[in-house]
């Protein structure tokens, strides 16, 4: 018994140590934020991300710190990430709107006029606020329900039961269709690439993945960019809606989803 307890304790040790360490970084970053050290706070949150933390609260705080630093492109990136990780987060939604408004105001200050519009496609607007787990659960239950009803129809002879199954099956089928579509949209299975955000006010989109390549378009801070190809040597091929397609320096395009998605 004592030996098994010892083994358990040894197994638990690295987990506890890691948790403490992450907590410390989190507390340190929050403390820096409260002291007005937004640079330090952002560094702390980024350190957590580098350690593999994929958490909506960390993304939200990083976005807020970046917004306080005036880096609205990065703020939009991480507000969007927070919303992707936790759909329906009203704080993140409000922060995202404020960051977009701030980008517009800054651009208007410099150029006289600016327009920052973000009209998500209908599918994204419909399902953007629904959790992927909920959609997956609905899809699973409606799938089991539909196929269960169809299977039961094969064997059940009692007319009243058959009538009930006949009504239930198409209704459950509709639920399956809607939740399945939502799951496909929310998981980005139909997207042309990974979503990203333009991080700087003027990001040239070039003909090729090199600084000498001629400039094809210019993307603006905060715009949505679809990352079509992770090229090599720090360049990515992106398409910016209503602007165009071209190669941009990877450091100027912030992916919305955590790496690996």
């Amino acid at each position, binding site marked *: 018994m004592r030996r098994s307890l010892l083994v358990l304790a040894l197994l638990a040790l690295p987990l506890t140590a890691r948790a403490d360490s992450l907590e410390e970084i989190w507390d340190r970053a929050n403390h820096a934020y409260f002291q007005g050290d937004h640079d330090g706070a952002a560094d702390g949150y980024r350190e957590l991300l580098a350690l593999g933390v994929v958490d909506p*609260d960390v993304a939200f705080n990083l976005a807020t710190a970046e917004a306080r630093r005036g880096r609205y492109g990065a703020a939009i990136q991480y507000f969007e990430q927070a919303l992707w990780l936790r759909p329906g987060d009203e704080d993140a939604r409000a922060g995202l709107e*404020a960051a977009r408004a701030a980008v517009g105001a800054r651009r208007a200050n410099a150029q006289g006029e600016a327009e920052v519009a973000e*009209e998500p496609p209908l599918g994204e607007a419909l399902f953007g606020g629904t959790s992927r787990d909920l959609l*997956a659960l609905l899809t699973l239950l409606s*799938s089991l329900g539909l*196929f269960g009803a169809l299977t039961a129809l094969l064997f059940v002879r009692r007319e009243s039961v058959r009538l009930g199954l006949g009504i239930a099956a198409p209704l459950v089928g509709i639920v399956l269709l809607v939740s399945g579509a939502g799951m496909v949209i929310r998981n980005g299975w139909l997207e042309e690439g990974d979503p990203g955000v333009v991080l700087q006010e003027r990001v040239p989109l070039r003909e090729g993945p090199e600084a000498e390549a001629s400039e094809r378009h210019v993307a603006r801070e905060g715009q949505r960019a679809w990352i079509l190809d992770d090229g090599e040597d720090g360049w990515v091929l992106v398409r910016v809606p209503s602007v165009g397609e071209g190669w941009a320096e990877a450091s100027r395009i912030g992916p919305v989803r955590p790496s690996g998605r």
Partner: protein
Amino acid sequence: MKPRLSIAIALLSILASSASAQAPDGEVEMSVDRNQVEVGGIFQLRITATVQGGQAQLQPPDLAAFDVLSRSVSSGSVMRGFTRESRLTQTMQLRARQPGAFQLGPARIDFGGGTTIDSNVLQITVGGGIQAGQPAAQGGAPDLPPAHHADGMAFDPRGFLRTWVTDAEPYVGQQVDVTVYLYLRGPLRASPAITREATTDGFWTRDLLPPSRSLDARTQTLQNMTFQVYTLRHVAAFPLQAGEQTIGAPAMEVRNSGLWGLLGGGGNEPLRLEGVPVTVNVRPLPSEGRPDGDVHVGELTVTSELDRAQVGTGDAVTLTVRAEGRGAIEQIRIPSPSADGLRVLQPEIRDTVSTPGGVVRGDRVYRWLIVPERPGTYTLGPFEVPVFDPEAERYTVARAPALTLTAAGNAAAAAAEPEPAELEAPSGPAPDAPSFGPIHRESELTRSYATMVDRGWYRGLLALGPLMLLLGLVARAWRRRAASDDPARAPRRARKAARKRLAEAQAHAAGGEPRAFYAAIGAALKDVLQARLGQPVGSLTHPELSALLTRRGMEPELARAVVEELEGCDFARFSAAGVERAEMDECLTRARALLAKLDRFTPTAEDEA
């Protein structure tokens, strides 16, 4: 079938009605960052419109009494239930043009069809002027560059672009005006299209022209040719670093109806013009006598103020430091005050910038919320900003004297981490500053973002449904095949079916339905015979059936009894009137006896017979 259909239709109608678009609704609100300004002063107007479930247009209020310096529009939409909610925020920098009291608004959202929603109305009071003797802010064009210079242009008798910089060797942070002019031999026929802006990388810039203006021509003679000159761009640029900085060449297309057009040169083809890049040699600030810290270039005065000089421990006071002057005001940094025993929260920063007479000036206001945690006397400041005057080429220090704060009472409770809400909005959100935060204080610090879909078991469970149906189909097909392939099971099933029919017959007898009763008895007998013989008997006449039964080895007596009973049933079905219950009971008894005998009957094969 009908009830099934009607239920389905009812359910679908419920779904459809819940999904249908609701009547459009919305709200619109206006706010300004200040209600009182001087002539030439700038304030910010924000209009926020929210529309649910429809399309609408936002109509801003009449702004004829103000210059619109900048305008930004931010929009987005989100689904709330089945309703799409669109939000639009329009932010405008307005400059007061004349003194007086003005009513702003209402702004309006128009859904079409006469449906509108109005916002609140705002009152703006405009005072006499910014400074005595200073020219009022003007949205007019700057002076034309001298004609004897040929800088910043590639002369072309048809027309050309000219980029003019007021000072080719400014100091870092010193304002220079960059103006792009269009020179044409004739008047413009349509708005020119700027295909490439004059880039100002390496400068912090502010537009000196209002965004909405008419292109008025002035005339200038260059190389003995008279040109119409239009001012396209006019910005104040502040170099951010020393060295050679280049203002990129602009490019544009114009339709010229002047001499060139009349002579047929080019016809309707637009005239494509390319400017030339202009290099500015930015001088570093002199090192001699340079104070420490970030130096503001221009003019500056700094003032400071505490809303209360004496407070109880734990109570908050507001410290305001205002830096006002000329230059890149928004670049000024004032460090937060600090003292042991004081909790200083992050500042709220508000900028007001205007360009009277083409000179960028304004103020930057820092507001700190300060909480003494221990009793005592604290000194805040002095607040100093080093300033370099580029005209006089000398350094000064703009200084606000130190302030004294006295805190009385017992020490506050342990200096807990301040509540985020308290930190983020010490005195309410500033209308002109974006509102961010508060940050979240709790986090699970999750390291995995895998959702249900990413789990292996999920895909397995998802495949379970179709698999279940597939197995069901296979099972049913197997059962049918097995049933049709196994003749030995047919009599057993027929016996079961016959028993069921006899039970039905009994019910019919009890219900006084002789026709149904005899039909059930006949069907029971035929089912059993069919199953026993392994061939249909329904189409045979009674003599044919009798012959078949005898041929297949049934005792003649039993065959005759069976056929007679069937004949009796047929007869009784067609002359059922007056049949007594007792007769039916007797028939039922006979049928049972016959079925029992038929159970024991084993027919010979057809070929054997």
